[in-house]
C-alpha cells in the first residue's frame, strides 16, 4: 500500500498532502469548461468518444435477463453502422444479472461487463457479505467491479476502515478492475471528496467514481474536477494513472462534451480514452446518438427513431 505520509510529509499535516478545496473557485473553474464551444468535426469526434466511454447502465430492482438483453444489444450496436459509431465501453448491472450479460455478450465482447457490488447502493452491510458478492460477480464473468465505500465510516472519521474495505475488495476482484464509488452527494463537501479520493486511490482503486446514481446530487462538474485534480496529484506523486468515472445526472450530449473538455484540459490527452475515463449513464446515450445523427444529417431528431436500451 502506498503510504499516505512518508519522508517530510510525515511532519506536515495531512492537509499538505491532501490539499483543501476552495468551493467558489473550483465551481468557477468547472463552469468555465461548459463555455467551450465544440462544433462540427470536433463535436462529432467528441460525441463518438463519449459513446466509446459509456458504461450503459441498468440498476433497477425490476431488472430481468430480458432487460439486460436489450441493454447489451444496445451497447454493442448503438446505432446503424453508417454513422460509424463505436460500441459502448461496458454495461453496468447488478450482481445477479452479470451472468446473463456475459451470456449475451460472449467472452470476447468489446463491451465489458461491469458489476456493482458491496451492498450497492448503501453499503450498509457486513464486510463478509460484500466480499462474497464481489467474488461471485467476478466469478460470473464481470470484467469490472464498481464498489461503494462505507460513507458511514467516512463521516464518523473511521478512514482506516474505509481504506481497509477497499483493499479487501480489490484483493477478491482478481483480474477485474475496481472502480470505487465515493457517493459524493453524501460526502457533501469538496474537502471530503478530495480526501475520499486519496483514500480510495491509495487503497487500490483503479478508477474513482462519483456516485451510485441513487442519491441526489449525483455527478456534477465541480465534484468531478476535484477528483480529476486528485488523480493528477496522485500521478505526479506515484507515477500511477487512475481512471475517473462520473455517474448519474449527465443527461445531455452537451453536458457530456463539457466533461470531456474538463478531462482534456485537466489531465491531458492520456486520459481521453475508455481505459481511463468512463461515463455512467442510461438516457444519455440516445441524446448523444441524436446529436451525432443531427451533426451528420443536418436536422433535429426525434426520440422515435432511436431504440430504447
Amino acid at each position, binding site marked *: *500500500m502506498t503510504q499516505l505520509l512518508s519522508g517530510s510529509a510525515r511532519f506536515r499535516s495531512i*492537509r*499538505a498532502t491532501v*490539499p*483543501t*478545496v*476552495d468551493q*467558489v*473557485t*473550483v465551481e*468557477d*473553474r468547472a463552469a468555465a469548461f461548459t*463555455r*467551450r*464551444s*465544440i*462544433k*462540427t*468535426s*470536433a*463535436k462529432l*469526434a*467528441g460525441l463518438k*468518444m463519449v459513446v466509446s466511454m459509456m458504461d450503459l447502465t441498468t440498476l433497477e430492482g425490476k431488472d430481468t435477463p430480458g432487460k439486460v438483453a436489450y441493454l447489451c444489444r444496445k451497447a454493442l450496436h448503438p446505432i446503424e453502422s453508417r454513422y460509424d459509431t463505436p460500441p459502448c465501453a461496458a454495461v453496468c448491472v447488478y450482481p445477479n444479472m452479470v451472468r446473463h450479460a456475459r451470456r449475451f455478450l460472449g467472452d470476447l465482447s468489446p463491451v465489458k461487463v461491469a458489476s456493482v457490488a458491496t451492498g450497492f447502493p448503501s453499503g450498509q452491510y457486513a*464486510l463478509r457479505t460484500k466480499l462474497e458478492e464481489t467474488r461471485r460477480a467476478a466469478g460470473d464473468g464481470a470484467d469490472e467491479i464498481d464498489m461503494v465505500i462505507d460513507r458511514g465510516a467516512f463521516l464518523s472519521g473511521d478512514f482506516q476502515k474505509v481504506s*481497509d474495505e477497499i*483493499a*479487501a475488495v*480489490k*484483493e477478491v476482484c482478481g483480474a477485474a*478492475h475496481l472502480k470505487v464509488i465515493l457517493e459524493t452527494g453524501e460526502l457533501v463537501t469538496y474537502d471530503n471528496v478530495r480526501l475520499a479520493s486519496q483514500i480510495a486511490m*491509495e*487503497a*487500490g*482503486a*483503479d478508477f474513482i467514481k462519483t456516485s451510485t446514481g441513487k442519491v441526489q446530487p449525483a455527478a456534477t462538474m465541480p465534484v468531478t474536477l476535484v477528483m480529476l*485534480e486528485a488523480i*493528477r*496529484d496522485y*500521478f*505526479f506523486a*506515484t*507515477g*500511477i*494513472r*487512475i*481512471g475517473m468515472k462520473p455517474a448519474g445526472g449527465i443527461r445531455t450530449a452537451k453536458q457530456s462534451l463539457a466533461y*470531456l473538455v474538463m478531462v*482534456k*484540459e485537466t*489531465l*491531458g*490527452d*492520456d486520459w*481521453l480514452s475508455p481505459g*481511463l475515463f468512463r461515463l455512467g449513464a442510461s438516457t444519455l446515450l440516445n441524446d448523444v446518438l441524436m446529436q451525432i445523427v443531427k451533426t451528420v444529417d443536418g436536422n433535429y431528431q426525434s426520440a422515435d427513431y432511436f431504440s430504447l436500451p
Partner: protein
Amino acid sequence: MTMKSKATAKLKVRRAVAVLKPVAPAHVQPVIADRDRRLKFGDKWDYTPAPETVPVKIAPRYELFIDGKFTAPQAGKYFDSINPATEEKLCEIANGGAEDVDRAVKAARRAYETVWSKMPGRERGKYLFRVARLVQERARELAILETMDGGKPIKESRDFDMPTVAAHFFHHGGWADKLQYAFPGRTPRPLGVAGQIIPWNFPLLMAAWKIAPALACGNTVVLKPSKTTSITALHLAAIFQEAGLPDGVVNIVTGTAETGRAIYHHPDVNKIAFTGSTEVGKIIAQACAGTGKRLTLELGGKAANIILEDAPLNQAVEGIVSGIYFNQGHVCCAGSRLFVQEGVFGTVVRKLRDRIQTLRVGNPLDKNTDIGAINSSAQLEKIRELVQCGIDEGAEVEQSSCTLPAKGYWFRPTFLTNVTMSHRVAREEIFGPVLSVMSFRTPEEAIERANNTPYGLSAGVWTDKGSKIFKMVNQLRAGVVWANSYNKFDPASPFGGYKESGFGREGGVQGLAGYVNLS
C-alpha cells in the same frame, strides 16, 4: 489469565486483523517513472474554430457626440482605429480638438444648469435604469465590437465586460435618489461638470465606471475614450439617445492625449477622473493643482499574489492564472508578482507550467480563445522590451508553446523565475501576460515584500486559514485585497489604490464621494 488462554487470546486477535487488513494488490495501470511523469496537452481531440458569427455594423466613420448629437470635429481631423488581432483598419474616429472639448464642456454646463441639477434623483435614476436595460438588450453586439476594437476574447467581453457594464448602470441608478443615506450628517450636492479620461483595457466598462456614478450624483460628463478603443463608447452614446437622456448630460469627445489635455486644463470643469498610467496621472495632478478641480486617479499597479503553504493549491493556481493572464494581463490590478511559500514552490510552478499549456491564444472572435491580442503594437513592444530586460538581468523565461496567428499583436502567457525584487520585471508594470515568480518563507516576509513597491492597488492572499487572511488583509498596503480569489469586481465593491496607484474609489458607497460636494 493462564499462559495458554493468553496465547489463544493473542491468536484470535491476529486472525481478525488478518481478515481486515490484507496487503493491497497492485493497480491495473503500470507505474510511470519519475522522469516520464508529464501531462500531455497535445492535439488529441482538437477543438475546431468556433468563431462568433453574428454580423455587426461598424460605421466607416464615427463622429464626436456633443449635446445629444453626433457632430464632426471642427478641425475635420480623424484617425484610424485598427483591429489588433488582424492589423486591419476598422473605421475612422474623430480627433477632437480643444475647440471641440470646449463645445462639449459648454453643452455639459448648460445641461447641468438647466436640466440635470434640477431633476429629482428618482428621475435621474430612471435614465440610468433604462441605459442598463438597453445595454443588456444590445449586449451581444457590444461584446463583438469591444473584441474587434480592443483585442480581448469574445468570451470575456460577452461573459464579463458587458454584464458588468449593465450592472454598474443598474446599481448606480438605484443610488440617484438615496444619496443622503450614503453620507450621514451631510446633504450631498453635485459638483457640476466632470471631465473623464479612460483607458483601453476595458473600454466600455471603464466608461460605465465613470459615467454611472457621475450621473447618479447629479453631474454631467465630458468623457474621452482611449485612442485605440473608441467604438463601444460611441455605441453607448447611441444608447443614451435611445434612452432619451437629455442632450448634453453625457458628451463623448474621442481623440488623442492632446484631447485629454484640453479636458483636464479646461477651466469650467469641476472634477477630473482619470484611469491610466501613473506617469500620466502625475501630469494631470500637476495640471489640476491650485485650480480647485476635484481629482480622482486610478493608476498603475504591481500587485503581489501570495500563495501560502496551506492554500487550496489547485484553486490557487487558477487564481494565479486569472490574476495575470485574464485580459492578456492588461489589468491595472493584475497579480503580476507571484510570491509562493518555499515549501510548495516546486509544486505550484509545475502546476502553473501545465496550466498555461491549456490557455488558448488566438483569434479573439473565436469563442474558445482565452488570451486575445495585445491592444497595440506599442504595447507589444513595451512587453517585449521588459521581458528581454528580464532575460538580460538573469531571469528564466517559461512560455506556453501554442502557435500564434501570422498577423496581429500577440504574446504568449509567460512567467519568469529566478527573479528578485531588484529586477525591473518585478518592479515595473508590464501590463501584459507576464508573471514574475518569487519565493518567501514566512507570512511576515511576504507582506514586507508585497508592500515593497511604490504602487498599492491590489493584492491576493491564498491560504486555508481564516485568521491569517484577516491579518494579512490588515497589513497589506493595497486598496483591494482578494483572499482566495482574484480579479473579482462588483459595482457595490469600492475599487482604488494606495500610494502611487492613485487615490479615490470607484464603486460602492465610498465611490460616490468623488462626485459630490459635502461641505
